[in-house]
């Protein structure tokens, strides 16, 4: 069912390198090649996970932006349309690869694995536990927000009942109340199950870096070195 299994540490490294390279400016053909190659890897991984639709959507958007940018926009293009195009393509080309990588990592990593990886990297429990809570809260917020939006629809106040401030107020206040309540009950439940013990947490997930992980890391390290080298020489 699962595609290519990677260690969470490899995935974190991948996010780091992809963001580093994709966000910096590429000029020479070599730099562009590295950049596109690195963008292709997370897309490929997404395909192995069976997320064809998002991979396709992303590739199409990325390709269109890249072509537009390379062929139609030059330094002396003027006018509103080209300004908008530069903005749009710039955002897609610079930020989307990092976002799609992060999305891939979030979709394929279990919280337990993530915590275990953080422990292996000697990150303090306080930080890894808080990050885990944040990850656990995203779906909760989504659920709560969905219910609140339904309630607003029934009341006919989706647009704030005529007040601009209402649109935000009516959404945020119930959302905050329920998140605070859930958070409070959640921490009571967590402390009765030993959270906060002054001993080293253990983990049910035994993480080991496989040859596959090492290979992936090597590819990323190499690309990063090449890219930085090209920058320094160029």
């Amino acid at each position, binding site marked *: 069912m699962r595609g290519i299994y990677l260690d969470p540490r490899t995935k974190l490294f991948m996010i780091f390198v992809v963001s580093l390279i994709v966000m910096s400016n590429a000029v020479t053909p070599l730099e562009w090649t590295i950049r596109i190659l690195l963008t292709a890897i997370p897309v490929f991984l997404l395909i192995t996970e069976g997320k064809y639709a998002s991979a396709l959507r992303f590739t199409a958007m990325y390709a269109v932006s890249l072509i537009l940018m390379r062929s139609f926009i030059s330094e002396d293009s003027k006018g509103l349309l080209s300004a908008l195009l530069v903005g749009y393509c710039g955002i897609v080309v610079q930020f989307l690869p990092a976002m799609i990588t992060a999305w891939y990592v979030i979709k394929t990593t279990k919280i337990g694995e993530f915590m275990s990886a953080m422990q292996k990297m000697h990150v303090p429990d306080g930080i890894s536990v808080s990050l885990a809570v944040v990850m656990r809260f995203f779906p909760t917020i989504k659920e709560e927000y969905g219910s609140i939006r339904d309630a607003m629809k029934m009341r006919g106040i989706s647009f704030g009942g005529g007040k601009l401030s209402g649109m935000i107020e009516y959404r945020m206040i119930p959302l905050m109340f329920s998140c605070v309540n859930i958070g409070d009950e959640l921490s*009571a439940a967590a402390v009765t199950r030993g959270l906060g013990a002054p001993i080293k947490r253990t983990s049910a997930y035994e993480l080991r870096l496989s040859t596959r992980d090492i290979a992936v890391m090597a590819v990323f390290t190499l690309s990063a070195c090449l890219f930085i080298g090209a920058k320094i020489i160029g």
Partner: protein
Amino acid sequence: MKKMINIEVQNFSYKGSASAGLHDISLHIKDGETVLLCGASGCGKTTVLRLINGLIPHYYRGELNGRITVNGIDIPSAELYDLASIVGTVFQNPRSQFFSVDTDGEITFGTENIGIDPDEILKRKSEVVNELELKPLLGKSLFELSGGEKQKIACAGVSALMPDVMLLDEPSSNLDWKAIEELKKVIKHWKAKGKTIIISEHRLWYLKNLIDRVIYMKDGRIEKEWNKAGFNSLTSDELCALGLRPTEIEEKYIEEFGRGIFSTENIHPCSTLSSESRITLKDMFFTYKPQKYFIKKKKLNAADSADYTLAIPELEIPRGKVIGLIGKNGAGKSTFLRCLCGLEKDCTLRLTSDEETVSGRKILKKCYMVMQDVNHQLFTDSVEAEVMLSMDNEDKDQAAKIIAELGLAGYENTHPMALSGGQKQRVAIASALAANAEILLFDEPTSGLDHAHMTSVADLLTELAKKGRTIIVSTHDPELISLCCDHILCLEKGRLKYMRKC
């Protein structure tokens, strides 16, 4: 026999709260005993459990005079994390007691916290999975599970810590009949393993054969105590007088809930209604997995309805009656309610009442749902503003009338969040009345309520129906159906199973 739990508390009061304390509690529980704590909401059941698991005084602060020991450990001076492997707690709300996103992580969460060796963790996990029959739930996201399944995972997470004492705080509040059976199995299993079990609960019928002793609490004191035989010999009227829900469910509701909705018999057509005034629902089709479309979305229709989540070609609902909507978890009760109040815009429902047919967004005006968690539908800073928000033309007199009608007079300027659960529910109903909704839908309005509150909800529903509103109430409580429903509407797999008079 060894005393497992000793509580001698002269006094306890929560910090910053005048009510809901405890007085003169003297409770001794033997090793391996199963004890039921019962009593009206706010009688102090939960507070007693918090004394045992150490949440008082370590998490909830307050003034405590007294001694509590569990297995020889003095609770107020122990650390919470040391208690984790001695006292385990299953809480009321399945939504807010899990910490992970996936089931596997949730089962091992506690054992990881107290630093157990990974091999031992995996051993315990597979043991718990076998004992509680959790195989089918492994590797899933907790957000996809039903309330009953979540509650089972919560039991497993506690079980993996291997505590001697198990506390359950109204564990069945959000569960259907089948899930309660599963919960009962878990409790039985713990009992067989010799655990000391304390359950605080409003629903009593499923526990009557499991318990050894019953403690009845009132206003923070222990008022009465029975052994099993003594408790089971109480009549419904006696229980009622104490404000407790009945332990005996009438035979016909066992039929309805036990065999009726879980039978695999063919779905038989509904009986036709007599000539009363009615509301007609037509073409109620909806699916969560619509066909992929390229340019034009295909309209849902009867011909393709075999795979739909909800498919009810035609249904007649008597006007001005209370209709109980039943069915097991996942039978489509919530989907039915969501479609009926117009929240699912792809639903093809056409609703006819008074020779007027509405569909699409206009249904939102006709129907109003009081959600299970009413906190989601209170938006403003006072009860009056809440009611006025629903009106097309703000009318103070009309608002005051509605508020008085629902027994909320005097609370006009109170912040809705400062009200009790039952009052909040009534504010939500008030806003539905102000919006002039003809059909009122209730999603599990009595989950977690004690007998008195349940009766008052039942009375309110009857009252609303008398005034001409049509009420559809989805519920797992046979007690509620027996109190107020005129008709029963049963769903199975999104299809109408039957509709009949009570």
